[in-house]
C-alpha cells in the first residue's frame, strides 16, 4: 500500500510502502529501497499504551491471574483431600461465581485463598462428604474465625445452602489422622483404626443423645471419644495411665484443650449408665468406668431406658415426700412455671413433676438457686446440656421502671450531669497538662 504524503529522502519518489514482513513495521521506498521510517517501537507512548489493561479486550479474553491461581488452589486442595471429580467441579464453579462478586474482587490475596477453601468446603457439604471447617482452616493455615466469616459471606452472596453434617460421619475421617496403629506404636498401645472408629462412633452417638454434642465444637468431642475408645478397647494399665496430653503426643495429633472437659462429661454419662448394669456390684466411679465402656456401649439403649425409669421413680419418691411436708400452694396463673414443671429426659420418657415440687429443690447445691427465682430444671433431669446444669450466675438486674416516657424531668437531676465552672476549668487545665506531657514524652 502507498503511504500518502511521504517523499523518499534518497530518490524523492512518493512510492513509499508499508512493509509488514518483519516484526517492526517499516516504510520503504519501492524505487530505491531506502527505509524511510521504522520507528514504531521508539514512537510508543511513554509509560505503556494509552488504553489501560482493564479497558482492553484482553481482560475478557484472558482471565485475571489471581483467578487462575485461585482455581489452581481449589484443585490442589481437592487433590489433597482426595475428593472426587464432582465435588471439584462444583467447587470450581462456585469459586468462579464468587470471585466476580464485589466483596471478593478487591480483597487481599489471603482472603481470596480462604475463599477457595470455603468453596471446597461448601461443595463437600452439599455432596455429603463429611468434613469440618477445622480441617479447611488447617489446610489454609488460617484462623478459623476468618474462615468462618468468609464462609458466611460467601453463602449469603451466592445464596446457597449447605446441609448440616453429622459428627458421627466426620469421626471416621478424624480417627484416620491418629497414628496409633501397630506400625507406629508398641503392641500394647496399638489399635486398629477400623475398630477404633466403630467404638468412637458409638461413643459420639451416646454423647449426642445426652446433650454433650449440641452447640459445641465437634473437634474436641471427637478427640475425647477417640481417646476413651482407645482406652476402653484394651484397658490395661499402660493405656489407663496415659493422659490425654501424652496420648496426643503419641498419636502425633495436636491436643485441644476443651477435650479434657468433654472427657469428664462423657465419663459422667457413662457412669450414669454404668450404674444400671446388673452385674456391677460396687459403685461406678470415673476411674473404673473405662473398663465397663464396652459393655455399656453394647447395651446402651437398654441401659438408657433403665436409667430413665430409675430416675423417674426416684423423682416421684422425692416428690411425694416433699408434698407430705409442704402446705399445698395455689397454682399460679399463666406464667413460665407451667412449662418448667414438665421436663425432657431423653429418647423415651417425659416426667411430670408435681406442682409443689417447683418450690422445693431436693438436689443439693442451693448456692446457685438462692439468687435465681427460676428453678434450674437442669438439675432435675437425668441428662441435660451441661450449660444448664452449671448455669452461670446472673448479676442482679435493676428493677424495670414503670415510666410513661412523658414525665417531668427535674432540673436538679440534669444539673447533676453538668460540671461546675470551677470543675470545667480544672478539667481543661488537666487536659492541657496531660497532652503536653504526652507530646513531651513521644
Amino acid at each position: 500500500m502507498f503511504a500518502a504524503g511521504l517523499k523518499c529522502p534518497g530518490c524523492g519518489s512518493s512510492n513509499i510502502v508499508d512493509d509488514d514482513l518483519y516484526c517492526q513495521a517499516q516504510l520503504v521506498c519501492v524505487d530505491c529501497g531506502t527505509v524511510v521510517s521504522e520507528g514504531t517501537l521508539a514512537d510508543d507512548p511513554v509509560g505503556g499504551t494509552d488504553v489501560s489493561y482493564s479497558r482492553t479486550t484482553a481482560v475478557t479474553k484472558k482471565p485475571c491471574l489471581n483467578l487462575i491461581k485461585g482455581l489452581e488452589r481449589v484443585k490442589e486442595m481437592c487433590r489433597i483431600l482426595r475428593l472426587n471429580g464432582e465435588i471439584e467441579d462444583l467447587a470450581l464453579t462456585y469459586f468462579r461465581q464468587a470471585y466476580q462478586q464485589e466483596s471478593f474482587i478487591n480483597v487481599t490475596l489471603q482472603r481470596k485463598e480462604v475463599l477457595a477453601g470455603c468453596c471446597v468446603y461448601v461443595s463437600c457439604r452439599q455432596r455429603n462428604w463429611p468434613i469440618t471447617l477445622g480441617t479447611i482452616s488447617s489446610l489454609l493455615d488460617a484462623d478459623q474465625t476468618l474462615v468462618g466469616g468468609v464462609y458466611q459471606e460467601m453463602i449469603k452472596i451466592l445464596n446457597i445452602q449447605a446441609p448440616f453434617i453429622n459428627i458421627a460421619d466426620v469421626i471416621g475421617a478424624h480417627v484416620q489422622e491418629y497414628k496409633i496403629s501397630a506400625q507406629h506404636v508398641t503392641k500394647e498401645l496399638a489399635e486398629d483404626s477400623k475398630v477404633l472408629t466403630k467404638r468412637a462412633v458409638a461413643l459420639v452417638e451416646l454423647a449426642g443423645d445426652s446433650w454433650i454434642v449440641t452447640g459445641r465444637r465437634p473437634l474436641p468431642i471427637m478427640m475425647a471419644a477417640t481417646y476413651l475408645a482407645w482406652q476402653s478397647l484394651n484397658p490395661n494399665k499402660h493405656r489407663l495411665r496415659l493422659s490425654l496430653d501424652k496420648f496426643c503426643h503419641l498419636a502425633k495429633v495436636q491436643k485441644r484443650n476443651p477435650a479434657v472437659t468433654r472427657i469428664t462429661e462423657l465419663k459422667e454419662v457413662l457412669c450414669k449408665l454404668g450404674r444400671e448394669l446388673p452385674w456391677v456390684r460396687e459403685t461406678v466411679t470415673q476411674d473404673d468406668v473405662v473398663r465397663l465402656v464396652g459393655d455399656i456401649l453394647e447395651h446402651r439403649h437398654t441401659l438408657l431406658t433403665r436409667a430413665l425409669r430409675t430416675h423417674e421413680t426416684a423423682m416421684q419418691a422425692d416428690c411425694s415426700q416433699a408434698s407430705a411436708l409442704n402446705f399445698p400452694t395455689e397454682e399460679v396463673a399463666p406464667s413460665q412455671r407451667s412449662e418448667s414443671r414438665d421436663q425432657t429426659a431423653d429418647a423415651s420418657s417425659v416426667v411430670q413433676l408435681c406442682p409443689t415440687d417447683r418450690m422445693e429443690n431436693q438436689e443439693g447445691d442451693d448456692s446457685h438457686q438462692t439468687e435465681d427465682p427460676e428453678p434450674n430444671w437442669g438439675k432435675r433431669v437425668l441428662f441435660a446440656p451441661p450449660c444448664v446444669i452449671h448455669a452461670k450466675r446472673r448479676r442482679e438486674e435493676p428493677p424495670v421502671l414503670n415510666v410513661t416516657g412523658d414525665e417531668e424531668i427535674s432540673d436538679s437531676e440534669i444539673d447533676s450531669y453538668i460540671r461546675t465552672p470551677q470543675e470545667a476549668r480544672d478539667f481543661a487545665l488537666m487536659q492541657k497538662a496531660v497532652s503536653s506531657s504526652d507530646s513531651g514524652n513521644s
Partner: protein
Amino acid sequence: MDDLALERYFDDSIANDPSYMVEEELDLQNSLKESHASSTNSQNSSNLLGETETSGRLSNDLDLSFLPDDLGNQSSTTTVLATAATNQNAELDVLEDSGINLDDNLHDMAAVKCQVTVNLGSESNASPFCPMTPMTPMTPMTPMTPMTPVTEKSGIIPQLQNIVSTVNLGCPLDLKFIALQARNAEYNPKRFAAVIMRIREPRTTALIFSSGKMVCTGAKSEEESRLAARKYARVVQKLGFPARFLDFKIQNMVASCDVCFPIRLEGLVLTHQQFSSYEPELFPGLIYRMVKPRIVLLIFVSGKVVLTGAKERAEIYEAFENIYPILKGFRKQ
C-alpha cells in the same frame, strides 16, 4: 413479676374471703356472684365508710372516663367499684408483664376486692349485677397483652433487654464543648466521632454526633428509651444549645426468654433449613431468620431464645408465639 408478692396477694385474698377464686377475669366475676349469694348481712356503717374511702383511693389510681356520665346512686358506685376492680386486675396483668413489684398495690387491691364482695352482698336489688355478667365487655383503658388460656399460647412472655432509638436534636453541636462541660461524657475524636454520654436513671448510653443526631441504647422499654432520650436532650439544652426533640424513633428491640427444655438444634436445622443456620464450629446457637414477622432468633441448646430486629413489641411476641410450637416439637426427639 415477683413470684412471692403474687403469692402473698393471693394468700391475702384467700384469707379474707374463702370462696374467692382468682384465676381469670371471668372466674373473678363468677366468684363475686357466688359470694353475693352466700354472704349475709355483714355490712355496717364502718363498711360504708370504708367503701367511700376505697372509692376515693380508686379514683386516684384509675381512669374511669369510660363510664357513662350520669351515674345513679349507690348501685352505680358499686358498679363503678366492681368494674374498677376488674380494671385494676387488668392493669395488674399489664404491670405483671413489665415485671413490677406491686407489693403495696396488692394489699390495696385485696382490701378493695373484699369491700366489693361485701358491698355487693349488701345490695338488696339484684340489678347491679347486670353489668357484672361475663358478657359485658370491659374495655380496659391501658393497653394490655390479651389474657389467653394457657393451653393455646405458650404462657411465656419474652422480656425486653435492650432498646435502640434515634432522635434528632435539630441543631449542630460542639462536641468538644459538650465533653468539657458535661460530667458524664467521654469524647475521643481519634477513636470515634461522637460524644458518649451516660445517665443513671434510666441506665442508658447515648452517642451524640456533631450533626445533632443522637442514638440512645440500653433502655428496657420503649417508654424508658423515650424518657432517657429526653433527658439527654435536656442536658444538651442546659449546656446552651437550642436542642429540640424531633423524629424520635425506635430502631431495634432485643428480647430474651427461656422455654425451660433442651432443644435439638440439629433436628431443627434439618427441618427448617431455609430459615435456620447452625454452625457449631462458629457459634453455639442456631440463627433462625423468621420471615413474618421479620425477626432474627438465636436459639440455644439450653432452651434460651434471644429475639432481635423488631421495631415493635408486638412483633417480638408474635415471633415467639410462632417459634414456640416449633420448638416444642423438638422436645422429645
